[in-house]
């Protein structure tokens, strides 16, 4: 988020003249629309907005948004974004990356942009596959994923993007998915957060990993399979008949049944976006026994990197007149006059 002068725009104003080239039916379309729908609500200024991406299907995103856009190289978008933000902290940066771009080749940069807390919205489109290179398994692919590079099934353990983000020191972690009607709200919360805001967006790659999130995104069962987290609200799902509670003995979360409205008696926890401990538990919840936690998991702002850099630059310069001629002559000097020497 940044402090921009509010600008009135419509969704149309955020559409560039470029033809969108994702596969028909790709989840990326829905995310693009959600973003383009959200930006006018944020009163964002297209001239102060920069979309920066790496390489992959998701990373084509900047071409389609009528703002500043920089399609960079594989995995390095966080580093470019850091340079942009340091050079002009007024710019509002949206980083677009994917599971391969952000967690494989670019894992290092993602870690450091989060640790440093550079103010930007980081959207990681997780489709658990390499789409652009035609379907190899990715660092978030589940074990046993059959792809051209893993014909017998993948054998490595997948990375958990939100756990990675929290472990890297992220101060904002949220989840959403491509076709969710609530995605704009998650984006708005991320934008309202000053600092690096990490959003994992489950995205359906209909060509290479179709419906891999169907088990929790399917409309019919979503009440049972999703839990939308809200700060200060009890963690309820299945239309309020179930909730998340803390098992005191194992010090782990558990699912409890709720009688009527009496979630207190059932011991259902109230979500607290400032609790890092709770966030760690929530991002680790295994899907299946638990519903998929969605929405804002953690939101606890801290000093941002660029503001600290600006402050330090200011302090270091305070009381100093930048005299370049004097700088050149710093240290011990001596004068040569005429052709004879007279050392000083």
């Amino acid at each position, binding site marked *: 988020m940044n402090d921009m002068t509010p600008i009135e725009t419509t969704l149309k104003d955020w559409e560039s003249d470029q033809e969108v080239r994702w596969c028909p039916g790709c989840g990326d379309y829905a995310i693009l629309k959600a973003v383009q729908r959200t930006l006018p609500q944020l009163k964002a200024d297209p001239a102060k907005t920069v979309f920066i991406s790496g390489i992959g299907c998701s990373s084509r995103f900047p071409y389609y948004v009528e703002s500043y856009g920089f399609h960079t190289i594989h995995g390095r978008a*966080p580093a470019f974004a850091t*340079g942009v933000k340091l050079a002009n902290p007024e710019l509002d940066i949206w980083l677009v990356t994917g599971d391969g771009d952000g967690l494989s080749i670019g894992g290092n940069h993602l870690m450091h942009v989060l640790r440093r807390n550079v103010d930007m919205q980081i959207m990681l489109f997780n489709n658990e596959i390499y789409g652009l290179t035609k379907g190899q398994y990715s660092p978030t692919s589940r074990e046993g994923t059959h792809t051209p590079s893993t014909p017998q099934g993948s054998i490595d353990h997948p990375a958990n993007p939100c756990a990675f983000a929290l472990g890297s020191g992220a101060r904002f972690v949220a989840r959403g998915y491509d076709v969710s009607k609530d995605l704009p709200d998650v984006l708005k919360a991320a934008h309202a957060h000053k600092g690096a805001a990490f959003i994992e967006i489950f995205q359906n790659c209909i060509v290479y990993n179709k419906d891999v999130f169907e088990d929790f995104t399917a409309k019919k069962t979503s009440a049972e399979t999703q839990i939308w987290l809200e700060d200060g609200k009890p963690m309820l799902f299945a239309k309020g008949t179930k909730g998340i509670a803390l098992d005191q003995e194992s010090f782990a979360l558990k699912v409890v049944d709720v009688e009527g409205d009496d979630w207190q008696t059932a011991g259902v926890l109230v979500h607290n976006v400032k609790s890092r401990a709770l966030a760690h538990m929530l991002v680790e919840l295994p899907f299946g026994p638990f519903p998929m936690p969605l929405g804002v998991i953690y939101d606890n702002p801290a000093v941002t990197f660029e503001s600290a850099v600006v402050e330090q*630059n200011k302090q270091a310069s305070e009381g100093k007149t930048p005299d370049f001629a004097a700088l050149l002559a710093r240290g011990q000097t001596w004068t040569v006059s005429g052709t004879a020497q007279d050392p000083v």
Partner: protein
Amino acid sequence: MATQTAETLTENETPEAVVVRFAGDSGDGMQLTGGQFTLSTALAGNDLATFPDFPAEIRAPQGTLFGVSAFQINFGSTDIETAGDAPDVLVAMNPAALKVNAPALKPGGLIIADTGEFSTRNLEKAKYEENPLENDSLAKWDVLAFDISALTLEAVKPFGLGNKEALRCKNMWTLGLALWMFDRDRAPLIEWLKAKFKKHPVIADANIAALNAGHAYGETAEISGPLKKVHLPPAEAQPGLYRTITGAESISLGLVAGAQLANLPMFFGGYPITPASAILHHLARLKEFGVTTFQAEDEIAAVCAAIGASYAGQLGVTSSSGPGIALKTEAIGLGIMTELPLVIVNSQRGGPSTGLPTKTEQSDLYQAVYGRNGDAPLAVVAARSPGDAFDCAIEACRLATRYMTPVMLLTDGYIANAAEPWKVPDPSAYEPFPVTFLEEKNAGDELLPYKRDEKGARPWIKAGTPGLMHRIGGIEKNADTGNIDYSPANHQAMTDARKDKIEGIARDIPLQEVAMGEDSGTLAVVGWGSTFGPIHQAVRRARKKGLSVSHIHVRHVWPMPSNMAELLAGFDHVLVPEMNTGQFKTVLRDQFMIDAHSLTKTSGQPFSIAEMEEAIAQYFDSTSDNEGGEVEANKTQLPSPKTVNS
């Protein structure tokens, strides 16, 4: 005028130049001793050149041969362009230092050794079977051996330091003796020690006491024999204000100057690597000049952040050494593709891979000129000395901003660490090259981010400029709009445009000058980078003998000045000395179809003047069967078909 080095310091006549080498354990503070001796030399008005030579290990095991750290300085009352070939004086703080460095010493030279360190154990570590100070193995030199350790302990006794701490003052004792020997003022050094140990006045006092004791020892002690006081009169120099400067300092200052001349804030993205880190350290202290420094998580992030900063309207700069430049390469390609200004400083070191981190080499020229995927041209500028690096850094900034392109500035470990007296430039003497950002649409009511000016450069549009929203990236772009465009004709046009733009720089740089000699003749010795000193001296000596030799030193390595072809055609032979296996020679052959030949060296040490002289001589030696072809150990190329006309 030829530099006459001291035949032997024991003669009474004053030599024009002296070469001193301080050598000791890497923990003995030899670099610091050398640095301070350099400063006192500069203050005495002598011209000088230095060569710091230290191991890659921070604290190599004590007393070992590979832990020896040395600092050589050549100073005198004439022009000094190299750190000198063979030392006249060797200060050896332990047996290992003696063993490693004695072979380089000039016959008749002086060895000063600390007997206190010549214990059986240290002799063993240095692989000496007998104590060399006690047999005749050092007979061709004068040896002055006495117990510096004990004398230091004695001198600092009143300060109640522990044995280890007290012995740390040995280097100041030795420096005191050296200052006496060359008739130097101790006052600036005492000031420096006071400032350095401001928080530990006892340490400062102990070091000052050691310094004074060393000085007094020379003055009063009953040293009979070899030790004589030598006074070298000041060298002639252009009038003005001087200071000493290392390449790392001058590049940092040059970058700041370049950014100021471009009227831009500077963003420097760096990652620690030897020998480039010093630039990051210097710039981190210059924030009041509009410099933001960013120590990134890796080399790649450092360059990417710099490109990001350029995109947002600052001058993006990154710096590294060969291995780090390799990591940055993909991003540099993006800088070329998106046509954003970027300065990349490469402080070259011995390679490949990790290679020789603390030793010097010029082996990244191919990497600079050719080393990227795709047809990816950029401009390359090479500094020839610590002082010259200042101007080269400014030139790199000028080209980067005028041509919207990455520019690589080549320096090396030798230039980065070596110090030389530097006439402090007047910043107002440099022509400013202020940048104009595009503020409104440049084609009626259309924005064409890739519409080029007469130089072939596209406009610089700062992200955040109202009304100029556009998208850039690494995919081939339409020649006007910058939108993705894969069409064959467009890629052809864009490849040509990128190439033409960089080649066009040749029209915007000074014509190649001859550094010494005529602009035609028998032999041109063509160099680039830090080989300037030895080439210049060797050519000077050859010319004194009446040989038709000229020295050409190339700053704009890519593209080269427009008169290069014509200039080189005026010589019968072209010899290219390089600290690599012949990279610039290959570029010259490729560009100008000339029969250039190599003199190569990749030992991690700079060329000596003698090596260079020998190579030149072979082109004029009528009894030699060498037809002006390869010299030195490099036998891989065909000899020149031409015969030497002499």
